[in-house]
């Protein structure tokens, strides 16, 4: 892949950097100090409550109930499942390089998560094992997401601190929504219109 415009735009780079240098010649500011802290376990009740505030479906269950709860949540819908899910989902489709159009023909997806955030009711996927590539948890209309109670951290700083920025991350807070009509929130636009969260343990 030849770098687009690199030849002709190299002077743009130099010029922008020169302007930046000149503009900031007299500027000084020190970044605010931060105390580093270990991620603290989050309050699982609060997490469940706040996920539900976004009009997501939230259920608590024990480790042996997960497969049954997944089946109930799917209610016969066909789901795509990523490698490494670790739960049996009868009738599911594996992700073997499905196209976006293929995924559009599938009702649901079941994934794990990387972190839950109690304060904001947010689930973060880092798209590692059991979570699938990003398109998987996006195109199907129902997302069933399994979050272990021990994955729940207290707040956003704890979540940021425990995540690896080299991986693609998707922060999910409820089903897709919009406030674009009269600034009133309506659930259900392009992303999954139903988010079903199973909090395990």
């Amino acid at each position, binding site marked *: 892949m030849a770098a687009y415009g690199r030849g002709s735009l190299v002077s743009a780079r130099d010029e922008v950097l020169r302007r930046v240098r000149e503009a900031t010649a007299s500027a000084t500011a020190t970044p605010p100090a931060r105390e580093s802290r270990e991620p603290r376990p989050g309050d699982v009740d609060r997490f469940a409550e706040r996920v539900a505030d976004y009009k997501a479906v939230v259920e608590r269950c024990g480790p042996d109930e997960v497969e049954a709860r997944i089946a109930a949540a799917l209610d016969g819908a066909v789901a795509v499942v990523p490698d490494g899910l670790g739960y049996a989902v009868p009738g599911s489709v594996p992700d073997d390089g499905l196209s976006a159009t293929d995924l559009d023909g599938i009702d649901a997806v079941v994934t794990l998560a990387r972190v839950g955030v109690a304060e904001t009711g947010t689930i973060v996927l880092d798209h590692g094992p059991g979570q699938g590539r990003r398109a998987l948890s996006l195109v199907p209309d129902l997302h069933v997401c399994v979050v272990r109670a021990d994955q729940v951290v207290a707040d956003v700083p704890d979540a940021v601190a425990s995540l690896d920025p080299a991986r693609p*991350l998707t922060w999910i807070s409820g089903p897709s929504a919009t406030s674009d009509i009269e600034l009133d929130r309506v659930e*259900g*636009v392009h992303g999954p219109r139903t988010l079903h969260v199973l909090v395990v343990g």
Partner: protein
Amino acid sequence: MTGATFVGMPAFPEAARAALADSQLRHNLAHATGTIRGKRARVVGELDDWEELRTRAAGVKDAALADLETHLLTLEERLTAAGATVHWARDAAEASAVVAQVARAHEVDEVVKVKSMATVEIGLNEALAAEGIAAWETDLAELIVQLGDDLPSHILVPAIHRNRAEIRQIFVDKMAAAGRPAPDDLTEVPSELANAARLHLREKFLRAKVGVSGANFAVAETGTLVVVESEGNGRMCLTLPEVLVSVVGIEKVVPTWAELDTFLQVLPRSSTGERMNPYTSTWSGVTPGDGPQEVHVVLVDNGRTRALADEVGRQALRCIRCSACLNVCPVYERTGGHAYGSVYPGPIGAILNPLLKGVGVDEQVDSLPYASSLCGACYEVCPVKIDIPSVLVDLRAQVVDAHRGGRPSVEAAAMKGAGQTFASSRRLGLAQRLTGLGTGLARRLGLAPAWSSARDLPTAPPESFRAWWRRTDGGRS
């Protein structure tokens, strides 16, 4: 349109007059801003460290801007190492040209777009259209604006000036020409309108080869871009196409990953009034087997370095485009965004446009720093503590200074006269006896009609305070 300002727009007072006469617009705005103000206040009130977060957010941004060259170089290096191609653009035309070049290289005649202020600022859609490339806006409000052949009027919700009935009509009239038509039985219920957008755009998401985005934040240390959104249209554009081009203003830099947390806390609460927005995506270059395998980042100046060089105005580059300042602004609430003639309306627009473009050149731009009563409501809510009133006052001085030297205007002459009158109490006392200073000044400025069209002017009392003080020895005799 090649800058932040729409061409051919009248200066603010004139544009505002037209907007004020539109009662439907005023109703839509009052309703929408009222709703969001309440929501914001609730979720901000939930955090007991809100003020601390604001201070921290401002501090992180200030430090990032002070050492911007270093951070930009780090960002470029990390992005390149992660498989992205980094481009630089001095201005709108260069930035648009890069995107067009990428699209042409892939022989596409359409791209899908995530809502991005930077791409509207640089006039990307128009530039691509000139090359025969359709740029589909996928954010609901942007879609409404695009289908309605309209201009954006709010940072977060560009179609805030439209109510549900108007939106339904636009969908019914215009969707068919752009792709899948609106459902036959479409009503004005918001969830149905949202569903119509879902159906209309789905086919575009599924077939698009090139996606275009902006970024809310660019983390230098890790080469990570961040897009904060609600609908999932962002995720679609960032994930499904083979090629992704992100147009990023150079001020979006956050030096370290750890510092991102502050912004992920203050932005959604200030913006949509939620604890967290539905979706935030972060990515660092190319991820093998997941998402676009060709990733471009265009770092855009387009006036930012001019703003950066302004010691007072530089703080405007801290802006995270939350739009809280618009939602609380009593001027914005009544005039709407179009009166500002720019993709950046409201209080932040009143400072950002002159800072990006410079003053003393364009009458419309010069009118913006005066489009404020200096009430300070914007400063009070701004999550990065931009002292908008102070920057407004400083820009007014710049506007006045830019016009010094020529033939003085009526206003300049009157201000000079007032300045001399206030130089000594003797002169002031004389002026009071002669004319009644306030009404006299108003008359000399030709302002009395503007005041009196709707407001009674007070009549000057027979005796000024200082005359009374002298006559009565401060009331003692």
